[in-house]
């Protein structure tokens, strides 16, 4: 059993895809590093914190990127963002079967300020272009840094998001919310609350992710394969209909649950039995207990 959370980006690529199938574009030996960090007296990484390339998933060739949460929290700088954008554009050019993104990121790399901001917005556009070209995009979120900020938004632009309960998906970070709105609004040091709110289980029930798995690389692999198989033969493109359905789901969500203070209250309101015990359940028990109540597709 290989923990997805414990593994670094390269280990995830090695163990998730078919053995020895990962071929890297712009590998570390090419030393395409950040042009900004040196000026700030900060260390660089040879791959600027993301490995991109081509791999096989159950024999199917996909393009993939894995963000390294250990380097600057996986935050997106100019080069990091350009690698992601380049990968996504190349996916369109090469008519690849699918794109699988292993997201672990705090969002924009503040050290690189505008370059980082622009990079993230370009990634969003490029991802939607991939979908518009009929290529499905699957995002995996299971690292200890979660998918926050602009990369949280990027993740939700995908066709399918797969999460473990250890993974977190959100826009604003907990500390930011607490600083802006006070500890009563969100106590960022209450880790159970943070994971209850941003973690895989709640996201699954709220419809923000479509699959939930155990913290296991093999489980993520299976879920990615299954998701791609389910997406085959369906439109990958983001259509007006899909957007409108999403908006409706969001409306319903706010109406039904907007006034409730805690995810446990939401789960009770969803008529999930023994809501307070949800965080204790393993993945299979959780899906059995709550799966039929979840929102979204």
């Amino acid at each position: 059993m290989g923990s997805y959370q414990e593994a670094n980006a390269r280990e995830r690529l090695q163990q998730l895809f078919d053995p020895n199938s990962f071929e890297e574009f712009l590998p570390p030996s090419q030393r395409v590093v950040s042009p900004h960090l040196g000026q700030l007296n900060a260390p660089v990484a040879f791959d600027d914190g993301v490995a991109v390339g081509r791999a096989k998933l159950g024999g199917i060739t996909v393009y993939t990127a894995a963000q390294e949460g250990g380097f600057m929290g996986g935050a997106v700088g100019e080069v990091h963002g350009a690698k992601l954008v380049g990968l996504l554009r190349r996916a369109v050019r090469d008519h690849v079967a699918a794109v699988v993104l292993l997201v672990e990121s705090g969002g924009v790399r503040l050290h690189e300020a505008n370059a980082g901001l622009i990079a993230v917005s370009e990634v969003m556009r490029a991802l939607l272009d991939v979908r518009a070209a009929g290529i499905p995009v699957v995002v995996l979120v299971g690292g200890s840094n979660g998918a926050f900020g602009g990369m949280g938004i990027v993740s939700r632009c995908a066709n399918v998001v797969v999460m473990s309960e250890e993974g977190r998906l959100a826009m604003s970070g907990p500390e930011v919310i607490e600083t802006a709105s006070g500890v009563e609004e969100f106590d960022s040091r209450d880790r159970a609350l943070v994971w209850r709110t941003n973690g895989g289980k709640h996201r699954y029930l709220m419809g923000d992710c479509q699959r939930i798995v155990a913290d296991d690389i093999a489980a993520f692999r299976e879920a990615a394969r299954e998701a791609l198989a389910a997406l085959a033969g369906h439109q990958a493109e983001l259509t007006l209909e899909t957007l409108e359905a999403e908006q409706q789901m969001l409306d319903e969500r706010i109406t039904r649950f907007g006034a409730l203070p805690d995810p446990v209250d939401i789960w009770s309101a969803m008529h999930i039995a023994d809501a307070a015990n949800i965080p204790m359940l393993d993945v299979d028990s959780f899906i059995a207990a709550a799966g039929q109540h979840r929102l979204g597709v």
Partner: protein
Amino acid sequence: MSWNTLQQNRAARLQRARAALGNELDGKSLPAARIADLLHAALECGDRVCLEGNNQKQADFLGHALANLDPARINNLHMLQSVLALPEHLDVFERGVASRLDFSFSGPQAVRVARLASAGKLNIGAIHTYLELFSRYFIDLPPRVCLIAAEAADRHGNLYTGPNTEDTPAIVEATAFKQGIVIVQVNRIVDTVPRVDVPGDWVDFVVQSPRPYYIEPLFTRDPAQISEIQVLMAMMAIKGIYAEYGVQRLNHGIGFDTAAIELLLPTYAESLGLRGKIGKHWALNPHPALIPAIEAGFVQSVHSFGSELGMEDYIHARPDVFAIGPDGTMRSNRAMCQAAGHYACDMFIGSTLQIDLQGNSSTATAGRISGFGGASNMGADARGRRHASPAWLKAGEQARAGRNTIPRGQKLVVQMVETFREHMQPAFVEKLDAWELMEQAKMAIPPVMIYGDDVSHILTEEGIANLLMCRTDEEREQAIRGVAGYTPVGLARDKRMVENLRDRGIIQRAEDLGIDKRMATRDLLAARNMKDLVRASGGLYQPPKRFRNW
């Protein structure tokens, strides 16, 4: 000549207290709101007062009340306390209610202790080990008043101290049997206590505190924070020392290094065929990190100094292993467990901050007066021991072979430390910071946690130095330098001497022990995060909130 001054004084105090409380005193019980009145009446200036600042349990309600007394009425108290853990433990000095202190450990408050001491508001009698302090309660430092914490009391004042009994028995006995006053805060008052840990005859006043007394989860370590280097060192400890000496009875000092060893027993030690051969009997708090080893059948018994928050249900479900009473719940006893560490354990292994060229080990740093806690008890060769065990005999033989001296055994005392600490601070130094602290705080001798005389092995990521086998001061110094890695102390080694020591087996590197460093990964840990520990316990372990993200 009056021979019963203590009895008379006690009677006077009780009289004053009854008068102050009037009909709000119900038997022994008083309302929480009247605590200040009780203390003003029952205390006298200059009293020796023992407050339960234990390692874990804190009589926080009483400590807070004490710190907020009127210094014009009560002052110059002489505090006797195991641990200074809470801010109010120093407020009492800041405000002039207390002026003198004898204690054992002050980790969380160490900086403030140093500041108040140098400002003259806190006069330190001495820093002690736990057992030493308790012993003095019976000789020259009897408490006049003790302020303790218990789970429950009945109407007669019988107390149930439960799993977190800790220091209470020693404190109460010493106080009651010198005509002192015993005041206790309890979480609840009941008709019948589950069992009687302290007889009501010894108890004078009971107050139910507004909130349950505070317990610090001191011994919980999140496996997610254990590094590969710590895994490597744990492997060396298990193979190079536990297996080598056949260590069946032991104590682990607090820390991630020892947590790594605990988590390697069901995996690495199991693979070496060591189940049943090491680690059967423990003087140890209920470490969550020990759960996998217990479940795997390594651990036969654990007797504890205190309890550990979150472990209650697990302990309750493992009565063969833990110190469970006739009532079905655990009791701990710091004094007895410290004594057990001295005489009934064959090995202590723990970490430290600094080691010098003689093997003296200290956690003292300038600007902080932190004391030693229990390490000095556990990490000492008990000269009074007589019964033999294979490990004790082997260590004693190694230390005495070739010397013209009567044979005896010796306790294994292992200091385990990475050569560099955070911010590249070397752990090995020519001169301990303890000397500087001695100057600063005007102590008689530098505060050393474990003396080099008692250290049998030093274990770093570079290997194990067996000091038992050294025959000269020079050999000892070079053995230490030989495992001090790239610190200035390590780089200044005599290369030839160190190689010679290695040839003789006095220094052993991982390769010499047959350890493949590539195996030293976190995958070897039986549990890699808090959830794994909960799963290993079958869901019985309930980690405190700060350790959970669920």
